[in-house]
């Protein structure tokens, strides 16, 4: 396995995927439409159901933590939506190829098309969620700072990590069918040990529990710029390192096994 061959192989998949943007755009839109077909609000159910959960959580947890709501609500909202995005990327990565069996066995298109279908679907969902974020920021009177300029950069890093996870988990889960359920239950655990509904400061001297949690860093680089907090530079560094590692591993894995995926289905 030479580096040249791996990079060339991955490059041709990326280029083919970019050229086929119409296919994944169409399939992603179809996925979303199918979920909300014939409902009056359509995809805005995504917005509404998130709003309801956040308000309910905020009412109860401000009482538990005895913290003012105009500080807690934006923290919870941004964290919760960042978490939904990240956890959906991870969990839906497991079925990118299994779910596209019909297409994969029929036509020869770059595997990235199926990955991008999942990514694009979740970016569209995120866009619907962003309405909630804007509403909450206005309600809580939070004025964006220059830190907001970090947000596009953070989004790119998270999305890119999602793309590589899609290739890697997608292929592994096609071969080993137990990995999907394992990932789903792990993500549930991660939700409770990651500061989404509780403040990270509550861990006090045990901050190392956060440092070793990669999901904390990915949420932090999305949350901090929006709330106007300073972004921890080591969070960026860790996210970049993880993304890079995922990129290298997924490219090598796809180079070695992509011809086998159709056989595994």
């Amino acid at each position: 396995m030479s580096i040249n061959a791996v990079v060339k192989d991955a490059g041709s998949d990326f280029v083919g995927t970019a050229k086929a943007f119409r296919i994944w755009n169409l399939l992603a839109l179809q996925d979303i439409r199918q979920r909300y077909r014939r409902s009056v609000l359509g995809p805005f159910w995504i917005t509404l159901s998130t709003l309801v959960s956040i308000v309910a959580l905020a009412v109860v947890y401000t009482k538990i933590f005895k913290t003012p709501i105009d500080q807690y609500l934006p923290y919870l909202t941004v964290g919760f939506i960042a978490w939904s995005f990240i956890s959906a990327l991870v969990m839906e990565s497991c079925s990118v190829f299994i779910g596209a069996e019909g297409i994969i066995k029929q036509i020869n298109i770059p595997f990235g098309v199926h990955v991008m279908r999942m990514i694009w679907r979740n970016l569209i969902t995120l866009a619907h969620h962003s309405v909630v974020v804007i509403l909450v920021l206005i309600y809580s009177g939070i004025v964006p700072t220059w830190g907001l300029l970090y947000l596009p950069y953070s989004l790119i890093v998270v999305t890119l990590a999602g793309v590589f996870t899609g290739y890697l988990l997608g292929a592994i889960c096609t071969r080993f069918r137990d990995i999907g359920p394992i990932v789903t239950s792990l993500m549930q655990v991660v939700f409770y040990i990651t500061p989404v509904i509780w403040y990270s400061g509550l861990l006090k001297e045990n901050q190392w529990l956060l440092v070793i949690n990669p999901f904390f860093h990915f949420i932090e680089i999305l949350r901090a710029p929006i709330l106007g907090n300073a972004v921890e530079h080591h969070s960026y560094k860790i996210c970049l390192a993880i993304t890079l590692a995922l990129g290298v591993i997924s490219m090598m894995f796809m180079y070695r096994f992509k011809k086998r995926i159709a056989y595994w289905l």
Partner: protein
Amino acid sequence: MSKIRAEAVCIDFPIYNSSGRSMKNAVLRATTGGRIARDSANHTYIRSLDMLRFEIEAGERVGLIGHNGSGKTTLLRALSGVYAPTSGTLDVAGRVASLLDISLGMDPDATGYENILMRGIVMGMGPKKMLAKIDEIAEFTDLGEYLNMPLRSYSSGMQMRLAFAVSTCIEAEILLMDEWISVGDADFQDKAADRLNNLIKTTPILVIATHSPELVRKVCTRKIQLEHGRIIQDERLS
């Protein structure tokens, strides 16, 4: 120049049961070495295509015949690039269109017109190209006002008409078919046969899997008979 060349092509399907697919066994194999490793070497494989060797030139229309399970569909899938040969080389030069499942990419909740565009995109044709063809496709289906209705309001025959009309508007150099596609009522079947014949005439290479000797005689210039994944007869028909 479109051409297909197969050199010692084999396709083996690994058979995974629940134990082969589970991580547990893969982990145990790694830790316990000997006994289970022997077991893992005994993985069951099915040799679906066995040392195929052939060349198909432009202008040939090949009929694949053979019993169920003789490897016809697998060969079509290999030609379309879905299955990479386990060993051997398979060179396919030319744009391949496969009509294995003509209703791929159709959405029951979209209208007939939307489905025409969507199916076209999944087949790799840009919206501009599809818009140029949409009137011709619409006319061919004879579905009239129905094209503005969601697909789920169609009868299954009407859905097939639409799928057929869109699938057969592709321009390719190599056409792969699993059985002759026959849709609709008596009148429509004649129309459909004409359209399919036209498509075949304008496509340099056709490979069709079929059980009908009559079809092979009528359409094909060459007959390849498969049995247990091997070619047992390859003859040119005049």
